[in-house]
């Protein structure tokens, strides 16, 4: 038992000593790793299937829902003004809960608290559409998440999760996305794992998907047990990733292979 603990400690330390935060000048969006064809898909709105979800979200914004019979627009008016820059600050600290919530979590809190409607399921078309529509209002704006001092312990926890080796492959996020992001795994670019364009359209999924979906796929990839949708761990990871990408422009809805 003692030996096992020592080995775990050693591997953890090895991970820590290698990893260093990528300086701003070297931060690269997943976009820069893509082929010209895939970039072209993101560059033009009419060619970007993610825009279909943004259109759906725009329609949902003005649709009344729940016992309160209120639409998002009834409180927030024109999203082009009220939601501008909002997604750049998420996940954000939610005082009532004493913990951070991501954009999807915020939308569902609005549903339950203000619309008196049932929350949307994770990865449902409605939740993806609304979060894409809201995040698209911040397109081109620099990511500024994690600045709230109340978030500090949660950023730190997300960072710890990012560094922590786990799963049958015994890998932490950092071992790929800090240490060897300029290399390839099979034929694919490893990338830095910068969450600049979520929710985004993955060619693999043939659909829009959230950062939580991507994280769960990554965790499964290292043969570890994925955290549940909406779990504090996933939100903390999202928060750390967004604070790690500070200053990079939002691309929602991005396209990725």
């Amino acid at each position, binding site marked *: 038992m003692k030996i096992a603990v020592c080995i775990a400690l050693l591997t953890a330390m090895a991970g820590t000593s290698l990893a260093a935060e990528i300086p701003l000048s070297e931060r690269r969006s997943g976009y820069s790793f893509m082929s010209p064809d895939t970039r072209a898909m993101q560059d033009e*709105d*009419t060619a970007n*299937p993610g*825009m*279909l979800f943004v259109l*759906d979200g725009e329609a949902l914004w003005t649709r009344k829902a729940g016992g309160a019979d209120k639409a998002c627009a009834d409180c927030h008016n024109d999203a082009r003004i009220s939601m501008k820059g909002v997604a750049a600050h998420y996940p954000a600290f939610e005082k009532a809960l004493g913990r951070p919530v991501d954009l999807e979590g915020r939308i569902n809190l609005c549903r339950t608290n203000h619309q008196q409607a049932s929350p949307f399921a994770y990865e449902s078309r409605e939740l993806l559409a609304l979060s894409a529509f809201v995040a698209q209002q911040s397109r081109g704006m620099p990511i500024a998440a994690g600045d709230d001092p109340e978030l500090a312990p949660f950023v730190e926890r997300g960072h710890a999760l990012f560094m922590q080796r786990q799963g049958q492959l015994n890998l932490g996020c950092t071992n790929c996305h800090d240490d060897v992001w300029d290399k390839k795994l099979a034929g694919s670019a490893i990338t830095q794992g910068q969450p600049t364009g979520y929710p985004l359209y993955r060619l693999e999924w043939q*659909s829009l998907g959230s950062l939580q979906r991507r994280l769960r796929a990554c965790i499964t990839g290292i043969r570890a047990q994925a955290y549940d949708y909406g779990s504090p761990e996933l939100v903390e990871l999202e928060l750390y990733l967004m604070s790690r990408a500070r200053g990079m422009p939002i691309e929602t809805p991005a396209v990725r292979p």
Partner: protein
Amino acid sequence: MPSALINVPAKAKRGSVIEIKTLMSHIMETGYRHTASGDVVPRDIITSFTCRFNGTEVFRADLYPAIAANPFITFFTTVTESGKFEFEWIGDRGFSETAQASITVE
């Protein structure tokens, strides 16, 4: 109603050739996938796309399961007069959607 994105220039010179781009929301389920319990997921695709200008067909396509989800189709047409493009997508399970776009000849 599923969303569609259409890109048609609002104005064009008479006799010029314009590009039209269309993107339609659709899962394009191939009919070749199975659930974990072995059941075939039934095919659900768009089978036909048509573009008409002032009532006359100017472009048509037959689609098969090998067309990617959220079908993206672009083509060209000659602008002869001001008018309306009508787009129609027809598919399995009674899928039928239309969209329109107007163009003014300068």
